[in-house]
């Protein structure tokens, strides 16, 4: 570039008319449409009682049994399934999370990848991992106890879950058992503590258990009352949770 070209260009810049609109995403001026972008609204769990991903009853029974050992019913609150966590999981697996929509899934998956990253990584989607994982867990129960996982007693279920957590049990060669346990634990907790609009945390039971006031947006009235039990009732993003 010659210096003179540059100066010429800069000189005419201010007078130059804005370029013609050439491509779809060209913006000039502030957008006039100030309405809420509907594409940005949250997508609540389906409330028609139909399952979209967990369509096999045996899978639902297995995951329900697992979830209710991870978060059992007691004086502090309902169990995970009572709070809606299976409905929650189905909704999540039916959406972007289940499809692994945000993951980089291009191969190859290298042999030492997980050790290098210090974290297991997957090309499989969470939906696929649940499908193989739940079937492998049921097959494991049949193999070791000649019964469905959901029909085992709490102690037997806990022993299997603890083995999965520690890595002392391998459900099947194609299942990263420890990682599958962590996936189920993470999703159970999410269902129990996420906004009720996603199908779990029924009656905001998870939030009441710990004292989280939910989707509140202004604590200025309370911020100076440090160290006090404020006794705030939780609120959800949906008016009736």
């Amino acid at each position: 570039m010659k210096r003179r070209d540059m100066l010429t260009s800069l000189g005419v810049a201010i007078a130059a008319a804005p370029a013609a609109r050439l491509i779809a995403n060209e913006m000039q001026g502030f957008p006039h449409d100030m309405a809420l972008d509907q594409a940005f609204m949250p997508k609540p769990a389906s409330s028609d009682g139909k399952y979209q991903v967990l369509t096999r009853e045996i899978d639902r029974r297995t995951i329900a049994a697992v979830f209710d050992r991870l978060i059992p019913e007691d004086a502090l609150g309902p169990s995970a399934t009572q709070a809606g966590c299976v409905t929650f999981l189905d909704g999540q697996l039916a959406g972007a999370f289940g499809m692994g929509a945000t993951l980089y899934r291009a191969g190859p998956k290298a042999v030492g990848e997980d050790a290098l990253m210090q974290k297991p990584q997957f090309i499989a989607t969470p939906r696929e991992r649940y499908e193989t994982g739940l079937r492998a867990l049921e097959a494991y129960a049949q193999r070791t106890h000649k019964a469905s996982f959901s029909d085992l007693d709490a102690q037997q279920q806990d022993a299997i879950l603890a083995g999965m957590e520690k890595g002392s049990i391998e459900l099947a060669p194609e299942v990263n058992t420890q990682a599958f346990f962590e996936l189920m634990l993470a999703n159970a907790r999410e269902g129990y503590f996420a906004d009720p609009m996603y199908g779990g945390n029924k009656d905001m039971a998870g939030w009441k258990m710990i004292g989280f006031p939910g989707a509140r947006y202004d604590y200025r009235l309370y911020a100076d009352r440090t160290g006090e039990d404020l006794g705030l009732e939780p609120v959800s993003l949906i008016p009736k949770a």
Partner: protein
Amino acid sequence: MANKRPKADVVIVGLGWSGSLMAEELTRAGLNVVAIDRGPWIDTSTHTPPAVDPDELRWGQRKEMLAPPRDNTVTFRNHDGQDAAPLRDYGIFELGAGVGGAGYHWAGMAWRFSPWDFQVRSRTIERYGRAKAQDGEMQLQDWGVTYDDLEPFYDQWERIAGISGKAGNIKGKIDAAGNVFEGPRSRDYPTPKLKTLRIMELFNKATTDMGLHPFTIPCANISEPYTNPLGVTMGACTYCGFCLAYGCGNFSKSSPQACIFPVLVRRPNFQIITKSCVTKVNKAADGKTVTGVTFADEHGRTWEQPADIVCLTAFQVDNVRILLNSGIGKTYDPRSGTGTIGRNFSFQTVSGADMWFEDEQINPFIGTGGLGSQIDDYNGDNFDHSKLDFIGGAGMLTLARDGAPIAKANALPQGSPRWGAGFKKAYAKYYRNYGTIFNQGCSMPVKAATLDLDPTYRDKFGVPLLRLTYDYAQSDRNMAKFTMDRAVEIAREMGAAHVSGFNFADKAFSTAVIASDHVIGGAVMGDDPATSAVNPWLQSWDAHNLFVVGASAFPNNAGYNPTGTVGALAIRTAQAIHQNYVRNPAPLA
């Protein structure tokens, strides 16, 4: 063949903090500016109002406000004897998914670096001798700017962003109500510091009793209504705690949207092209300049945007990747120490202590993304290192950020059950009794660290991914251990019944382990073209009409969050362009 757009005076690549600050300066000076951003247009009231924002699952866990790794990830290995693997899920790279960049979802800690951070090499040699600065592993180099050079631009950025804080040093006059260790400021913050919440009260008392110097972290979650010099008005923060990884629905977290866009986007000499990804800067035949950029729109069509001046203002890793994919400059070779593109990646060396009380009401749900108390007694060179086996230190802070209940379910005293009735019992008690001390440690560059192009993995356009080779400097590891021990002492002094020290630097670094999201370097600034990619005006040594702006320019990372320094550098560069460069388009002296 590429479609060609009309020529612009300046093309801005990435409309985050750097891009929007520069665009504001340059359009105000009358230049015709086109900004190209990979993400869509998003704004506070239309996309993240209070009816959408307080949703931990969606923003905190699913991270919908971040650019997905699917589109834009980095491969990683610890050393060059390994094959790098792509980071497949979210990790330490928290790029924005729309206009505003990471400036839309950031937490809001609004720091200046200390004077020492810009001159680590020369000041270490001066105080401790050459051996301490040249340990064979670290690759220290001064920035070519000093704190004093940057002070007016820090001040300007704080005014635009409305930062809330209390000065500890105004023109050399020390005030113990602020940070007594900070560099001299020309004036106080534009808005007063935020409230002191419960965990901060405990931290402030303990550290004061220990002879340390606590102060409130300067925040971009602002304390009172404020109108900035551009005429844009912000509202007071409501302490809702939905900040980091969230958009603010309240116009009270400083962001390009809240502070700049209302003015910038209305200017007739400014255009934005959204959902369009710049893949390359185009070199001129003369070998000394560039002619513009090539980008792909959302339909995959290729476009050329010619411009007299190109400003790369994308996230750190993207700035470096675009340079490498454009063949601009020489790629850094760690064996010979030559080349500059990809040199001096650094991170943030993090340790600290988690603590649990028995009968507190921390009320963690009241907070703001950047709020907390900090001590700088063990940061930078604020303490004597002559008998220590490291340089630098950490900002040691306690967070009053959020009470996000899914994330906090992991924060239980050691030995607590992670599931079952025992988990419920522990969490019901300790949710309101948990606190943390986070040591945000400096990160010193090492010779062996590189950013180059991955030979195997590509993005959806078929463009090679960036490959990171990195592990912590031993000096940083020693620093993290030292500051972890101090954090444990403070936590005990605060009266915690259970204290667990943690140290991310006691094992190998990994991009999947989210110790921090502050990634730095790769196109660093300096006054020597042999060791820096850009000069102290962030002007490429290899093409004088190319400016590479952002944390990619930091030769080392400080014990503070980077955004304030990113903002100050961007304003300084933009002013150099319209005050000097356009009159004499040549390397700036």
